C-alpha cells in the first residue's frame, strides 16, 4: 500500500474539530495548476482517475497527510469529482450544506475544494462558515441568511486545497467580474474505526481544548460546541465514551481504498 504519513498533531486536529476546515495554500505544482485551469466544467470522473491527478492532488503528501490524520489509514480515495466553473458575474449562491446530512460525532467524510487558479474577492470565492459543520439544518431553510459574523471568503493562491468536514455551510460568493473561476470538489471517506491516527508527541491523550466562540455563536451554543468537540475528539482517539459506527454507504459516496491504488 502507498505509504501516507499523517501530518497533523493533537492541536491541529482539535482546531479542525472546532473550525471544520483546513486550508493548504499553494501546495499543488504550478504546471499542473495551469493544466487544470483549462479543464471543462462539470463531472471529471476520468480525469481524477489519472495517475497525474492522483499524484499531484489526491495523494499529494500534504493533502493525503491530512486525510490520513483525520480518516485513518486505508481511506477511500476519490474516484469522481466535480469542476465548479463560473465565468459570468453573479449575485452568489445562498448558504447551504451539500446533499443530505451526515450527522454524528465522528469525522468520516472530508469534502475538499481544489483551486487551480488564484481566487480574489471579485472572483466569487467560495465562502464557508467556520464551526457550522455540526449544525443540522434543512438547506432550503437557511437560504434567506445573508452576512454572518465570522464568515470566510476563501481568497486563496493558485494550487490551494481547502479540506472541510462534510456538512459545513458554504456557498459561492458574489462574483463581480467575468473571469474564469474554477474549483474542483472531491471527497475522501473513512473505512476504519479511529485510533488517534495523527502524529503523536506522546501516548498520553490530552484532553480536548475548546478553541473559543465563533463570532456568530451564542453563549449556550458555544457550550454545546465545546461538548460536541469533546465527543468528537474522544471518538477520534478511540475512547469508549462515544460508541458510533462508521456510517454505511452515503449518498455520493465513491472511492477506492488506498490499498488498491498503484501509481505507475
Amino acid at each position, binding site marked *: 500500500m502507498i505509504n501516507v504519513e499523517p501530518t497533523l498533531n493533537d492541536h491541529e486536529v482539535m482546531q479542525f474539530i472546532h473550525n471544520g476546515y483546513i486550508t493548504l495554500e499553494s501546495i499543488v505544482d504550478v504546471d499542473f495548476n495551469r493544466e487544470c485551469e483549462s479543464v471543462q466544467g462539470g463531472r471529471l470522473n476520468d480525469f481524477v482517475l489519472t495517475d497525474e491527478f492522483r499524484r499531484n492532488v489526491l495523494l499529494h503528501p500534504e493533502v493525503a497527510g491530512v486525510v490520513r490524520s483525520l480518516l485513518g489509514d486505508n481511506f477511500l480515495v476519490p474516484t469522481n469529482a466535480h469542476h465548479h466553473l463560473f465565468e459570468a458575474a453573479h449575485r452568489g*449562491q445562498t448558504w447551504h450544506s451539500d446533499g443530505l446530512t451526515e450527522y454524528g460525532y465522528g469525522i468520516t467524510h472530508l469534502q475538499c475544494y481544489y483551486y487551480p487558479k488564484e481566487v480574489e474577492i471579485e472572483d466569487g470565492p467560495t465562502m464557508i462558515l467556520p464551526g457550522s459543520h455540526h449544525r443540522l439544518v434543512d438547506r432550503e431553510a437557511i437560504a434567506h441568511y445573508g*452576512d*454572518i459574523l465570522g464568515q470566510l471568503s476563501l481568497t486563496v493562491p493558485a494550487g490551494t486545497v481547502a479540506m472541510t468536514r462534510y456538512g459545513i455551510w458554504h456557498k459561492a460568493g458574489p462574483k463581480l467580474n467575468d473571469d474564469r473561476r474554477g474549483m474542483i470538489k472531491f471527497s475522501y471517506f473513512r473505512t476504519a474505526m479511529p485510533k488517534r491516527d495523527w502524529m503523536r508527541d506522546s501516548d498520553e491523550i490530552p484532553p480536548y481544548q475548546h478553541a473559543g466562540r465563533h463570532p456568530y455563536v451564542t453563549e449556550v451554543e458555544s457550550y454545546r460546541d465545546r461538548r460536541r468537540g469533546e465527543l468528537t475528539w474522544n471518538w477520534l482517539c478511540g475512547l469508549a465514551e462515544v460508541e458510533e459506527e462508521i456510517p454505511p454507504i452515503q449518498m455520493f459516496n465513491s472511492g477506492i481504498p488506498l490499498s488498491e491504488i498503484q501509481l505507475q
Partner: protein
Amino acid sequence: MIIIVIRAIQFSVLRRLCRRSRDSEIAPTAGFGTFESSPTRELNASVIVMKGETRVKSAIKEWLDNCIEKLKVGELTEADLRSVPVVLNSEKQLILYLYSKSTNLRSPLGGWALYDATAPDEPVLPSQDAPYASVLDAVNDGWKIVQFPRPELYNFTDVDNAYLTYEFILEKFV
C-alpha cells in the same frame, strides 16, 4: 378645511419620515442559488445594509412638498388630495432579518440580511459590518418588528446546534 386636511396628512407623514430619516449606505450582498453546480436564480432578492441618511426621496414627501407649493399659490385641488392613496400604495416594503445573540433586543447581532425588491440585481461583496448594534438600534432607526423569535421553537439540547438564533424580522417602507 383644506388646510386642516393638509396639516393632518403632513403630521402623519412627518412622523413616518422621522422614523426613517437615517436610512441609506446601501451595501447589498448575497443572493441566489443553492448548489455550486447549479446556481439558479431562484431567490432573486437582494440583501443589503442600510444605515444613515434617507436613500430614496419618499413618494409621500414628494407629494406633500408638491401640495404645499400648490397650496401657497392657491392651486391645490381636490384631485391632488384624492391622489393620497395612490402615493401611499407606491411605497415598497423592505424586509430585514436580524440574528440577535439572545431574545433581548439589546443583544449584539451575529448575522443579518436585508431584502430590497427595489435594489438593482447586481452582485455586491459580502460584509462583516453589522448594519446595527442591536435589534433595538434598528427599531430606533425606524424599523418595525413584524416577527419576534419564539424560544419554544428553538432546539434545546446539551449538544446540538442548528439554525442561527434568534431571528427577528423587521420591516420598513420606502
